[in-house]
């Protein structure tokens, strides 16, 4: 694998993370991080939507009329999102989680990461790198989601993946952690940690 491709994959995970560096996809990272299970399914859904939409649009990139390119992107992303939602609803194992995530699966389309990466990368690159870029950005988003959900479920419900962890020791779940503002505080902490490691991100 050449260095450029490797960079395409690794950059969005940490150095150019879509949530903490590009500050995209904040809304859903506040909304679906109450439980780890929900965050995991959401992360996988975004990875699939991001990867495949980037692939399709990269394949179509030379044929798309410039004036309607946003609309074409929107149609393709919307299709992917509906497909993911329909498939989650169809399996017994994922039905309950889809119910729990409710509107947020459908709202993946409004996640700026998806359209942002298509506009910035897929329309100007070959299908394979575009596909990897989509996957990697979805994964970068998912990583933050899972970190936030880990703390929120542990402190807010005393459980992890629904299993009692802190609850066993008489922990009283903190309701503030369940509420969206706490996710923002956690995100702020993650950004803080990242910026103290990556000095280049600090504004002068």
């Amino acid at each position, binding site marked *: 694998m050449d260095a450029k491709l490797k960079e395409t994959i690794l950059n969005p995970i940490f150095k150019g993370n879509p949530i903490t560096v590009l500050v995209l996809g904040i809304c859903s990272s506040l909304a679906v991080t*109450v439980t780890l299970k929900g965050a995991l399914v959401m992360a996988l859904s975004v990875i699939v939507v991001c990867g495949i939409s980037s692939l399709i649009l990269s394949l179509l990139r030379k044929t798309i009329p410039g004036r*309607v390119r946003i609309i074409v992107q929107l149609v393709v992303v919307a299709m992917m999102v*509906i*497909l993911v939602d329909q*498939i989650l609803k*169809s399996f017994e194992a994922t039905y309950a989680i889809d119910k729990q995530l409710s509107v947020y699966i459908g709202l993946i389309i409004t996640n700026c990461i998806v359209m942002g990466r298509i506009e910035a990368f897929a329309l100007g690159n070959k299908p394979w790198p575009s596909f990897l870029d989509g996957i990697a950005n979805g994964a970068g988003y998912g990583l933050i989601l899972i970190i936030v959900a880990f703390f929120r479920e542990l402190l807010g419900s005393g459980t992890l993946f629904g299993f009692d962890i802190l609850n066993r020791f008489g922990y009283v779940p903190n309701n503030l952690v369940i*509420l969206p503002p706490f996710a923002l505080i956690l995100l702020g902490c993650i950004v803080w940690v990242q910026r103290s490691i990556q000095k280049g991100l600090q504004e002068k």
Partner: protein
Amino acid sequence: MNTNNNVYTVVYTTVIVVVVAAILAFVSQSLKAKQDANEKAETISQMLTSAGYGTKAELDLLNNIAKLDKYSEEIEEAFIINLDGEKVSDLDGITVYGPKDLKRQNYNIKGGANKTGEPEIPVFIFKNGRTVVPIYGAGLWGPIWGYISFNSDLTIGGAYFDHESETAGLGAKIKDDPSFQAEFVGEKADFSEINVFDIVKGGAPKDADGKSVIDNKIDAITGATMTSQGLDAAIDTWLAAYAKYFIGSKPACDKPCCGGHEEGEEPCEGNCEHHNEVEE
């Protein structure tokens, strides 16, 4: 190729949209049966929870087929009634009323522009003697619905509520917090009043031991006023629709005043009062 001329743009967008629509229509049609089965199994597990056949978590460990089996094993009788409490028709096999069906009937009960016909509301009687009836209404962000079961003496045996998009940790407690649902158990619905059931902000009446007294009031959820009010309204609307069924199914009141009391006399309590009001 010039991708910017008008004809190309119009043709291109048309083709894209038609192709995407075809894919979605195909997928939706081919997955519909599975999705409906999932929804039905979910509804059944909610009703079984309310009827006291295990907690929701326990029932969720069963797969769809096992849930359906358990339902057909435990159901005694299921039928549809009208607002006069009269049986209209039987519900065959494992026909249940999920949120979509309830939504339609909710319009019918409340009347207005969306009314499609006379209300036809279901009654499910389980072998353990409990009668399960659904409720449906509006929460803060979207629909809320649920299933309440009554013992033969019309005390509430259990309740399970679900919602589409209430706030996690607050309004969502109507579904996620077993202790909220447990508050309903043992309470009484007062079918003789317009407020059949009350979810009270600031605390329901308690006895000296801090236990809720048996009446038709329970505590609302802190931080979820709108959802609590929505649930209260949903329960009132739907239980009122069942009032004639439930009160009619009780043995006739044996107090003398039931035949109609004279002015100035002490009004009777409970059902008698209701009977009098209806007859007058």
